[in-house]
């Protein structure tokens, strides 16, 4: 949704939240379309009148509606073993993780636990069996901050000493070659209930990032820049006004190492993207990422209007 001030020659856009899931028609009927649209209308007008963000370092709380995309780009793609082996070098790129890193690479802080899961209810990459008949399963990619395992197929698993594939083979069309595709990759919530207000508390100067904004990440999945649909100030633990032209920029291991708070089970949400591209000829894949909101300390924030 775009609001334009035609007299001033200014405009702002607020993407309307899309939350694809692998569910039946009842999901379409139950989805709060009008509430989403009404909220977007109010927020895009507020965004048009908002002041630009002051660039610098901020503590950032990222809502599941944006964090899912950060997980997709920085975790989902970096833990694809075919990328680490150079099989995607000409298009999507490789990975900062090397094939011998499982079990030793520090990926994030000890509260960071990330799983691959093709059994998750409503997940866009959920299936009974993959394209070569391997039964779907759930497994840890990152446990207590350490990278522990890859996304694999039957061809890939033996290359890292494993006897069983994690069931990630998929083709998007009858004419497409099946190849490794991302499962649902999700961040586990805290064991106890942690609310959004708990995550805000103690933040003197921060930002709360919601919704899908611009995303860009390098070919080895180190350096990224993410925007949001709506970004609000956090001052002394309280949520404030919308700021415009904000994007956060970090390096994957630094970003996840700076995570010092994740929401509890009640804050966990499943989001997804229906068009993840990979391969030559290009194929698309639908994939979900579940997560609670999470807090990241001392993150670089840009003013993209003045960059």
């Amino acid at each position: 949704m775009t609001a334009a001030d035609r007299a001033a020659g200014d405009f702002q856009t607020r993407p309307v939240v899309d939350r694809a899931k692998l569910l039946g028609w009842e999901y379409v009927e139950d989805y709060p379309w009008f509430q989403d649209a009404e909220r977007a209308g109010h927020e895009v007008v507020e965004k048009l009148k908002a002041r630009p963000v002051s660039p610098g370092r901020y503590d950032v709380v990222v809502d599941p509606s944006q964090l899912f995309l950060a997980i997709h780009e920085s975790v989902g793609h970096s833990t694809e073993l075919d990328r680490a082996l150079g099989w995607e070098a000409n298009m999507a790129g490789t990975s900062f993780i090397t094939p011998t890193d499982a079990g030793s690479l520090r990926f994030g802080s000890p509260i960071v636990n990330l799983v691959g899961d093709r059994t998750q209810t409503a997940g866009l990459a959920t299936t009974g069996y993959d394209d070569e008949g391997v039964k779907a399963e759930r497994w840890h990619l990152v446990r207590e901050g350490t990278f522990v395992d890859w996304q694999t197929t039957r061809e890939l698993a033996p290359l890292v000493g494993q006897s069983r594939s994690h069931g990630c083979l998929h083709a998007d069309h009858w004419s497409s070659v099946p190849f490794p595709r991302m499962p649902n990759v999700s961040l586990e919530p805290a064991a106890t209930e942690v609310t959004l207000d708990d995550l805000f508390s103690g933040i003197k100067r921060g930002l709360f990032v919601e919704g899908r904004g611009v995303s860009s990440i390098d070919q080895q999945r180190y350096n990224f820049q993410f925007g949001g649909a709506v970004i609000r100030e956090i001052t002394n633990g309280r949520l404030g006004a919308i700021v415009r032209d904000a994007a956060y920029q970090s390096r994957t291991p630094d970003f996840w190492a700076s995570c010092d708070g994740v929401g509890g089970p009640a804050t966990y949400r499943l989001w997804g993207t229906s068009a993840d591209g990979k391969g030559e000829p290009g194929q698309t894949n639908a994939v979900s990422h579940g997560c609670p909101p999470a807090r990241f300390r001392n993150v670089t924030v840009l003013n993209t209007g003045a960059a």
Partner: protein
Amino acid sequence: MLTRDETLGICDTVLRHARTAGAEDATVSVRSTLESHARFADNRVTTSGRSEDLGVTATVWVDRKRGSASGSDVSGGALQDLAAEAVRIARISPVHREYVPTPGALTYAESRGFASATAEVDLDARARALGGVLDACRTAGVTGAGFHSATASAAGTATANGNRRFFQSSEAGFSVTARSSDGTGSGYAAGDHFDLTRLDPARIASQAVQKAIDSRQPRPIEPGEYPVILEPQAVADLAGSLAQAFDARTADEGRSAFSAPGGKTRVGERLFHERLAIYSDPMHPVMPAVPATDEGIPASRLSLVRAGVLENLEYSRFWAREQKRDPTPGPVNLIIEGTGEPTTVPAMIAGMERGLLISRFWYVRLVDARTLMLTGLTRDGLWWIEKGRIQHPVRNLRFNQSVLAMLAPWNVQAIGAPERRSPLLVPALKLSGFTFTSVSDAV
């Protein structure tokens, strides 16, 4: 691929069924395609394939309500079902507020962008070419990955108002990424042409291999604003966002980089360097395109920027009607070129006191549509230039840069000869300033 008569015959059959089912207006498109490819990585061929496909799409209007259905079965009963389904969908759809009656009979030029050699790939020749590329990578001690593809299509459209058009087109492409054995260098090169016989995989691979060797052991530099030389691939990686900004409706509605205060547009303003011309031309000998827009307007040369002045925006049939003017005959491709004698990349380097040479960009995204601010990263070859010579490779950088500022009158120092990067034809550029915001560790 289907012939002209076969293609338009299917269109006519579906049109007849649509009318019988109650459609008041309709457009039917049929596309048959051939696709063939070979992919390699880790210095070995990994996958290859060939596919033939056929698609039929019918879009119909009933009481100004629109419905559309697609399929791939061209048997008589299936085509009747497809038309009936489109009509059923139309009947339960809301009124199409932007409905414009489908075009009637129009005259089109013959498409120049088709070569039978691309449709009928010589697999032995492809295997020999890839064998040579893999040998070159092994000999140089680099790891090669790449993609060789050839596609051809025959596409026809017929409307209830008598429009009939049919075009063949083809596209062959080859790209290579070479990575050095120490993991610190990476080079990329690519080429494309509608005629497969005009592709030179050995030359493309040689360029990628040399870039991989020359980019080893890069040194970091501080992010900031630097003078740069963009090779044609790097210009192409940014120009796609510019192409989308020429839409007249978004500009007229105040939501485009080409909108101006007071509800006006920036048409007539000198926004770009005076030597820059940007246009579309389906008959261009190097970068031809199908001589019709997606809406069926016969395409011809359309000047968008002349002598740095924004001259035209793109008007769809609907928006042209709203604005009481004619729809524009394009764009169907995008050609950026400089008037006057082009400057070669070596000459640009020789004339640079200090700055960066950029091979290509990656993961480029539009950050701010008001200024065409883009973000993305350098990839596969970045070098520091000082006193007219390349000094050393540089670690990759993230940029946040406005395309309008990049091509502004004060920022363009030199323009190269345009090269084909389908669907673009773009030159190398030497620029006074380009803004980088962080360093990337990626190779």
